[in-house]
């Protein structure tokens, strides 16, 4: 699959910008860059600090530092966390896996459920079921994620005792993992679905007045088959765009859910590094998420290309 050079260039530029931001931010912030780079949790004697300053090359000209920063990044070296006593890259990889297990099903389920329910709601606005689903998703859409998480945890986890309150697993077999993941994935799915629902509903509302819909009707299609054979594909284009954005959103949303459910994923990693002001980890996670979003954008373009012939031809 070849892409227009312009798009690729944009992604490269975006990556370049984010990496640069990540490089200059700690150096531009008030305070000692050593502390800004190592985290405030890091306590060491003066000698040690000087030694590390030397190691990090903070005495060298900023452009030289910048170049070596890039070199490190290309080797997937995000630095070292004194708080976690580990390389940031290995830390992120071990956490990313779990967050992915959380995010991927939510994203897929959320997109499917949201798109289906949303298209139905846009198509037949008057039915009672759609009014209900509209109000339901609107409520989810308008609520802070941590709020919903705690409420669901309280009712399903505590009151009804159906699900465990923390962790990815206890024993580690797949049923156990599913049981632990059910509530977090449910909540993330709801959020993802609510966003997709709103977009899909609006999109179908716009599409349904278009001439090709009337024409499909004139050909003898029944209402439901117009929706699924004609409108759905057109109306889902904005949802696909959202897919990439959703990715970043779910990673941030996962933050709150991971905290509430004590899940040892990227969100908790971010949270722990906030608490200990572990800047290398914060920056590493930030970079990773940005990178994931760029990849998701790339993927989105790909899907978009595949669905919309107009885009394909405009290359």
């Amino acid at each position: 699959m070849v892409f227009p050079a312009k798009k690729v260039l944009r992604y490269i530029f975006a990556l370049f910008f984010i990496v640069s931001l990540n490089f200059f931010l700690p150096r531009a912030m008030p305070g000692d860059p050593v502390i800004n780079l190592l985290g405030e949790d890091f306590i060491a004697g003066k000698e040690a600090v000087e030694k590390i300053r030397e190691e990090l090359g903070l005495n060298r000209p900023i452009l030289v530092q910048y170049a070596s920063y890039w070199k490190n990044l290309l080797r997937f070296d995000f630095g070292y966390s004194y708080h976690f006593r580990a390389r940031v890259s290995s830390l992120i990889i071990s956490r990313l896996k779990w967050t992915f297990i959380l995010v991927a099903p939510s994203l897929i389920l959320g997109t499917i459920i949201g798109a289906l329910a949303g298209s139905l709601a846009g198509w037949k606005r008057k039915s009672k079921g759609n009014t209900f689903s509209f109000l339901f998703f609107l409520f989810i859409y308008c609520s802070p994620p941590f709020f919903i998480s705690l409420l669901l945890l309280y009712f399903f986890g505590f009151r009804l005792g159906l699900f465990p309150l923390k962790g990815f697993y206890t024993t580690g077999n797949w049923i156990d993992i599913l049981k632990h993941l059910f509530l977090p994935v449910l909540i993330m799915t709801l959020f993802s679905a609510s966003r997709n629902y709103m977009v899909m509903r609006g999109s179908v509302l716009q599409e349904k007045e278009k001439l090709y819909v009337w024409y499909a009707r004139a050909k003898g299609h029944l209402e439901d088959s117009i929706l699924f054979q004609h409108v759905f594909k057109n109306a889902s284009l904005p949802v696909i765009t959202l897919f990439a954005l959703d990715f970043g959103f779910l990673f941030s949303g996962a933050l709150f859910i991971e905290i509430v459910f004590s899940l040892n994923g990227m969100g908790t990693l971010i949270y722990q590094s906030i608490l200990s002001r572990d800047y290398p980890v914060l920056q590493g996670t930030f970079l990773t998420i940005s990178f994931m979003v760029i990849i998701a954008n790339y993927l989105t373009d790909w899907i978009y290309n595949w669905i919309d012939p107009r885009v394909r031809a405009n290359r």
Partner: protein
Amino acid sequence: MIQHKKKIAIVLLTVFSLFFLMTFVSHGEEVVLRIGSPNMVSTANLVFDDYLPVFAHISNPPLTKMNTEGQIVGQSAKLIEVSSDNTTWTFHLNDSLYWSDGQKVTPQDVKFTIEFIAQNVPWAGWLKEGLQDISIQGPNAVVLKFKKPHTQINRDLSSYNLLPKHIWEKVESPQDYSNPGENIGCGPFYIKKVDLNAGIITMEKNPYWKGQTPQIGKIEIHLYNNVDVLSLALEKGDVDTYYRYASSYPYQNIERLKKTGRFDFVEKLNIGLYFLAFNLKRTPMSDFKFREAISYAINYPEILKLDGLDYGNLPARGFVPNSMDHFFETELLTYDLEKANRLLGEAGYIDSDKNGIREDLAGKDINLTMLVEPDYVRRSELIKYYLEEVGIKVTMKNVDESTWIALKDQYEYDITVTRTTPWGMMVHGGWGTAYFDSRRTGEGVLHIIDDPIFLGLVDGLLSTTDPGKIKELAHSVQSYYAENIPAIALYWNMIITPFNREFTGWQPDPLFGIYNIDNFVNLKKVF
């Protein structure tokens, strides 16, 4: 579409009921003590993690410990000797200690541990600088020789876990050594697994443990990011007790737990406390009369009730709580608005322009900058209200922990609310001197007193190991606090630990609470 909806509903129902059924999976027979803790372990490192070293105190017991009476006694070391000039300390090891792989604990292990700490742990810099020589004496004794007299080394070593030399010397970079699997230990339990994805640290019985045999078979430490969720887990029965280093179970949640009828509570007066600190390098805080007046402006009963839910005692002018060794009774702090106003007036702080705010001696409105850390917002808010009651304006400055440290080190504040930990109360000269001695630095250290009298008392404490002399000096320090009020204790609180009634025999110590070996070997499951 209706059919579709039905299908979806059926699938959802099936999945749901499947999960419902799975909740009835039963557990094994072995007696397991499950401890819930919000102290999130972030890496399986026995030395550098924030909290794993605390949890490892029962698997890799330090040389010394604090007993339930608050005295430092030997743990892995059965006998501790100190030379008369306080420079040479000899630790005779308990000879019945074995690592969980069957090897005997040797003085080499201790030597390795202390050298490792001195070399790698930044906050143990004093050890690196002060240590002259470590040698092994006989089959089971280690001798530490210091460059200058060190009187409290037994206490300072009570927090460093013993490391097995035969494992750690093979590790390539021990600074980064984190091991989520089995960690060899020499306590009654050893760490079997640190599974952060499950949020569980599993500890199993050390088969070679020669001391009192524990009644429980296994300890699981369950980690919760969120305290409320942890409280729910307690209530639900997911965990049996609660442990948070140097902190109590949230007071607000106690009543609720009591109602379940399944829990009892260990109540222990905390050695640490919350206090209001003055920046003595600035006016008007440097004026004793001002501080004295303020000490009457604070509504102690109310702050105890609101902030501590009455789980604690009213404080005395002597600062140090009565749970501490060598407590010396001083006059209780009292709330007397009239007196506070009168004293302020007498000291010359009068509101002459009638704008509701008193002026300082130079004639300017008093506007105190109060540093507020996120965790101390409520207490700080109350202090602000109290001071405004007597005509002193307070501006709250929101800072995070690191900024707080930076600003207090630069004396860029007027007042602040902070706390002491039990450990902090005991280090340095003890009795809180660590926080005030102007010659010290450190995270929570305020270093605001440079009065030679006070420094003399501290030096006295630092140069003796004689119990009688220590007691005398401890009393003097408390009198000094009472007479000079460099800081005001807000209240003395309790550390409350809920536990499942099925377990009995709890023996908390003042330093690490329930988390000590004596406690765990004595615990019994009743039902």
